[in-house]
């Protein structure tokens, strides 16, 4: 087993981060519970009437998942920054964007994926029409990595600060607007029987672009906030 | 004159728009002046502290 190659570094990072999440798997459920709680609030606020809820169901699930993802973003670099392993990462001879891409991937797998799995349940809570569910899942599959990538860049900018939760939301939410528009647009289009391919393709294009640019931007942002 | 002020019945909308424009830009122009006064006061404090310290050590 070779050591010191970029591949081994990524593998080591995956193994370490997964075992860390596994060691605290109770915490991994928090975003899911938060999302369920937020969705449950809407029937209390708007009344349980199916037609009213059905109309807003897809959008509400998207916003709930977006906010749950936002809350879990802070943990991306927080613990590594506090115990110094972020410095070891930046110091390692391997390309920093690649390592950060691994960290973001692990973050997406451990927070966004459970949210994706719980989305049908959330949809059911709000009488989500059958026709919209597959489109909602497709839109989520494309938009949640986008949200994690964009969020990672902003987290890298606020990593040095103690209580940056609210500021992080202020930085990230304007950047989330286009993603939410296209994801919700796809679901609404499905609801009205319109073609859904266009918004989903836009999300795919955005994801392809961000997959390449975000790790680079994240590495640059990290160097700024660590200097 | 009053006809001019009424702005075709939309007077309060038009004049409040221009009022907001004027107020916000004035605040934006005044803010640095206030900050300038504070910064200069702090700077003079630093100078006095430095002079006092250099007299003590001299």
């Amino acid at each position: 087993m070779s050591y010191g190659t970029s591949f081994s570094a990524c593998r080591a990072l995956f193994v370490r981060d997964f075992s860390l999440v596994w060691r605290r798997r109770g915490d991994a459920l928090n975003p899911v519970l938060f999302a369920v709680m937020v969705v449950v609030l809407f029937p209390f606020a708007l009344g349980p009437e199916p037609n009213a809820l059905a109309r807003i169901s897809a959008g509400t699930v998207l916003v709930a998942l977006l906010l749950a993802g936002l809350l879990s973003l802070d943990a991306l670099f927080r613990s590594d920054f506090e115990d110094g392993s972020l410095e070891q990462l930046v110091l390692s001879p391997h390309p920093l964007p690649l390592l950060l891409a691994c960290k973001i991937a692990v973050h997406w797998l451990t927070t966004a994926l459970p949210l994706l799995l719980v989305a049908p349940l959330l949809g059911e809570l709000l009488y989500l029409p059958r026709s919209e569910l597959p489109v909602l899942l497709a839109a989520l599959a494309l938009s949640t990595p986008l949200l994690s990538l964009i969020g990672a860049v902003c987290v890298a900018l606020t990593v040095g600060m103690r209580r940056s939760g609210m500021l992080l939301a202020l930085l990230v939410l304007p950047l989330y607007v286009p993603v939410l528009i296209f994801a919700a647009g796809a679901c609404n289009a499905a609801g009205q029987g319109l073609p859904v391919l266009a918004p989903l393709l836009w999300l795919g294009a955005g994801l392809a672009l961000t997959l390449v640019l975000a790790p680079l931007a994240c590495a640059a942002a990290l160097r700024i906030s660590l200097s | 004159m009053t006809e001019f002020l009424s702005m075709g019945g939309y007077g309060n909308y038009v004049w409040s728009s221009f009022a907001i424009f004027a107020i916000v830009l004035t605040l934006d122009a005044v803010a640095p002046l206030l900050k300038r006064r504070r910064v200069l006061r702090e700077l003079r404090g630093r100078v006095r502290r430095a002079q006092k310290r250099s007299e003590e050590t001299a």
Partner: protein
Amino acid sequence: MNPLVLWFHKLGSPPYFYRLAGRLLPWLWGLGLISLAVGLYGGLVLAPSDYQQSDAFRIIYVHVPSAWMSLFIYGFMALNGFIALIWRIKLSETLAMAAAPIGAAFTFICLATGSLWGKPMWGTWWTWDARLTSELVLLFLYFGVMGLYQAIEDRRQASRAAAFLALVGIVNLPIVHFSVNWWNTLHQGSTVRLFGPSLIDSRMLWPLLIMAIATKFLFAASLLSRARVDLLELEAGKDWARQVALADGDAA
């Protein structure tokens, strides 16, 4: 070194910039206020009232120049941020951070006057018109940059982080604009263009251009006066800053 590079290099030294800005300021304020007066007179008095919106359309003379300025200043901020990050030029950092509050001010004016214009036309204070919505997102982008700048203690690191965020924001602006337009057509169909009174009459048009020039002068003046103060605060440890404070002490 050719004179331009030499001048730009000299501009980099704070005391030189401080004095130069000091000399320019009265001119900028003067030109700004004069062109403002001319523009307002042209817009409020000379321009005929619109056949459709009668005199309500005159709000355009503050609304549209502010919209232009909000985008212009964000571009200015991102450009200076780029220069500051790539070539580590301290002056660009200061200029970028000084521009942020001014940009936010113009964006706020644009939103406020837009809703004041919407009320008589649409009967509601806020209309999810595509451009107003993009402007609202732009306002949050400004607040994000200013918030980040305030939140970090080390001034140099704060300005570099905020400049980087401005760069991320500038990439995002066209995407937001496109997606909001797409969203608007998806939900409301093509709405009547709220802010497009017929500007065929040149008497309506030239005041708008004068106002655009006026807002640029006012921006430059406010920017330089803010940049001077920030430089003074940043360079508090330096000799020239002490001289300025002492000189100002006697004058005040």
